[in-house]
């Protein structure tokens, strides 16, 4: 049997107990045509360096755990093949714009907090009880928000977004896409609640439509669209606020 092909991976390492900052470490990994970059990382951990730390789970681009920068692009490690980067060196680093906790593991607590603020759950438009039966919806109604519902919270879009990089208080692509998913769901009646987030400085107005977020999204969510669809409505509400200031003043005070 012939010698397997080899590829060089240059992986970002950072162990805060001994490193002052991130550094690069090279590994030579044998690979086959079907191996993903994730499997390359797993080979390193299993055979070369057990101290390498990284998140992964499903291996099939649905759990959103294994996001990282591969040759400077935000990717799901399980979603790209080693063969496309051979012979390397291919650089694997932690996702941009997030604090790095250890090796490729980032601190994503900021995103989780953002997710809570957008009320990413169905707030029924009408009172319903289980006796009312299934809350049904036409296929066309579902098509209106379907794309935005595909988000797997992988955070590649946050790594792509320079506005999030500059201003970490920006709600960000995924949170705002999920906000839009519920606003466009005709079973939902919570759009007033979510307006607070939309109209904020850190809401849709933090976006300058770089558009790279939608390019890197592995599930075709198109967060750039979700965010920018809300600008006209937000602007209309702002002007309406001049016309009828009483309505807005109370909410601004908070």
């Amino acid at each position, binding site marked *: 049997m012939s010698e397997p092909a080899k590829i060089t991976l240059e992986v970002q390492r950072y162990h805060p107990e001994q490193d002052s900052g991130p550094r690069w470490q090279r590994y030579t990994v044998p690979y086959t045509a079907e191996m993903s970059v994730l499997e390359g990382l797993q080979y390193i951990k299993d055979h070369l360096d057990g101290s390498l730390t990284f998140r992964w789970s499903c291996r099939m681009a649905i759990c959103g755990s294994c996001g990282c920068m591969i040759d400077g692009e935000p990717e799901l490690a399980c979603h790209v093949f080693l063969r496309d980067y051979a012979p390397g060196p291919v650089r694997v680093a932690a996702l941009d714009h997030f604090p790095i906790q250890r090796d490729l593991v980032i601190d994503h607590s900021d995103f989780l907090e953002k997710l809570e603020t957008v009320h990413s759950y169905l707030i029924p438009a009408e009172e319903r009880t289980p006796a009312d039966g299934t809350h049904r919806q036409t296929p066309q109604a579902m098509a209106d928000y379907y794309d935005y519902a595909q988000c797997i919270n992988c955070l590649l879009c946050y790594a792509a977004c320079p506005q999030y990089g500059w201003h970490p208080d920006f709600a960000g692509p995924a949170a705002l896409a999920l906000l839009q998913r519920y606003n466009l769901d005709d079973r939902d009646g919570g759009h007033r609640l979510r307006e607070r987030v939309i*109209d*904020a400085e850190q809401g849709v*107005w933090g976006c300058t439509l770089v558009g790279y977020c939608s390019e890197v999204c592995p599930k075709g969510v198109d967060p750039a669209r979700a965010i920018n669809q809300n600008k006209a409505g937000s*602007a209309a509400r*702002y002007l309406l606020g001049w016309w009828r200031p009483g309505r*807005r003043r109370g909410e601004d005070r908070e």
Partner: protein
Amino acid sequence: MKRSHEPPLWLLFGAGGLLAALLGPALILLTGVVVPVAAERGVEVLGYEATRELLARPLVGVLLALSLGVVLWHAAHRIYHTLRDLGMRAGQGVWWACYGSAAIGTLVAIGAVIALW
């Protein structure tokens, strides 16, 4: 969460951007290329008398002044935000420089148009 005051800036930015997109290429082609190329062949395009007559009409003049205004506004908005994107700590001073010059440009345009009447 603090409410953003971007909306009115964004609306003017959008108006200027749309106008520039719809008419920019055609206008630049006309004044920047056709005028000098025609002049070389001895044909007068947008001469004084003709242009004065076209732009002296109040409606046309006002539209022109406002159009120039929103395009300047569009550029001011983009330039201000791009300076911030590049890491410059563009504070109040830069804000006033950008939007202020757009405002002054609009006023000059309105003044010039009125002077034509």
